[in-house]
């Protein structure tokens, strides 16, 4: 049974139909890369799965429970699916530790000491154990993004959505974040990630989705998608003749 079931999902902003019927099933432990031109609807798809956008048609379900736009269902869904943003979106008034503790205590009502212990564990997992008391503006972009990952992991999600998590980083900081993601993939975390890191996608992903004009234009294992693109659009995107 698929972990994430996306069926005929449609989304429009006014006149602009951004998702034109997306179908995608993600099995537990799968690592899926979503590639495509800017504006093809990649972010919108991830945001729909996390309930940050309401969908206009079709259905999304995660681990058997349906995504519905009321607070109870949204909360249930978001407890299962974490999201990492391009701009990190750390809470500036809290330390790294505070960032990771907050939602545990507020949403899950985990007692503070347990939440703090979990925060230490997760920060250690992303290699930032010593940054527990540092504020976001005292951290590099790569470190901030790793804190954001730790923050999502502390909620113990069964899947993570990653939207261009390295695009806002200076080139020399990309590797440290990708290393963490690679680790997660190896540990069996289900990942759905929008990325421009083609080499990373080829190495780590089980399947690659090429989106074009609001549709899944091509999908398959990385060796097929990258080596034997079928459509002219994907060929052009990959820069092969």
């Amino acid at each position, binding site marked *: 049974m698929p972990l994430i079931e996306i069926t005929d999902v449609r989304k429009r902003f006014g006149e602009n139909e951004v998702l034109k019927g997306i179908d995608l099933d993600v099995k537990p432990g799968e690592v899926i890369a979503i590639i495509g031109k800017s504006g093809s609807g990649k972010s919108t798809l991830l945001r729909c799965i*996390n*309930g*940050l956008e309401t969908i206009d048609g079709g259905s999304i379900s995660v681990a058997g429970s349906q995504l519905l736009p009321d*607070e109870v269902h*949204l*909360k249930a869904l*978001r*407890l299962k699916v*974490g*999201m990492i*943003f391009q*701009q990190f*979106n*750390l*809470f*500036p*008034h*809290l*330390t790294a*530790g*505070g960032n990771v*503790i*907050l*939602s545990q205590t*507020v*949403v899950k009502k985990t007692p*503070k000491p347990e939440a*703090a212990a979990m*925060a230490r564990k997760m920060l250690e997992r992303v290699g930032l154990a010593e940054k*527990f*008391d540092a*504020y976001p503006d005292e951290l590099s972009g790569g470190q901030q993004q790793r804190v*954001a990952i730790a*923050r*999502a992991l502390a*909620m113990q999600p069964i899947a993570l959505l990653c939207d261009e998590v390295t695009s806002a980083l200076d080139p020399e900081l990309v590797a440290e974040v990708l290393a963490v993601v690679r680790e997660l993939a190896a540990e069996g975390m289900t990942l759905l990630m929008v990325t421009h890191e083609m080499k990373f996608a080829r190495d780590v992903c089980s399947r690659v989705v090429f989106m074009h004009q609001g549709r899944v234009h091509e999908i398959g294992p990385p060796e097929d998608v990258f080596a034997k693109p079928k459509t002219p659009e994907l060929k052009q995107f990959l820069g092969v003749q």
Partner: protein
Amino acid sequence: MNYAFSFSWLTEYYPVLLKGILITIELIAVGGLFGVALGTACAWARALGPAWLKPLVSAYVELIRNTPFLIQLFFIFFGLPSLGLRLSELEAANLAMVVNLGAYSCEIVRAGIQATPRGQFEAGASLAMSPIQTFRYVVLVPALQRIWPALSSQVVIVMLGSAVVSQIAAEDLTFAANFIQSRSFRAFEAYFVTTAIYLALAILLRRALAGIGAMIFARRPAR
């Protein structure tokens, strides 16, 4: 002009002044605390609250911001008893301060909320926080920090505005001055001294608010 200034009345009347100072401090403490709390609640309602609440809050804010504090005070103290709400002078003064500062701080806090990057709301949501939880734990503190200087200025303005509560015989600092001048016939000196005290209070209040801000927004490790 052959007028001899005299401040000898001070030796007799300084306890009156002291009492007035205390009441003025009490007024701004209560007004500041509850006024900012009310304003924050209204700012939430106006920026993020349910649709039916927004016009009500807007009406309140506009009404207060576009009428003199003196009239608000008279309306509360003299007008409300005909609706069966009879308040003492001090209660009416306190209520008027809260209602007045509530409206101004609503606008100030709202500006702080609106300056919050969208990603902060989305990060809260993606961590399964409810909109209220996101507001309370994610948005509020940085928003208040952003507007703390503006809010402090407004609190000082309201403190200085509180001088008019003497007009309903609430026994604040200005009331003390009025009392002294009617007894000692040293009107100019009484108001001169009182004005100097207000100036000192304004400077101290500004310092205190800066200190409170530094305390609230201090960086501290999570435990």
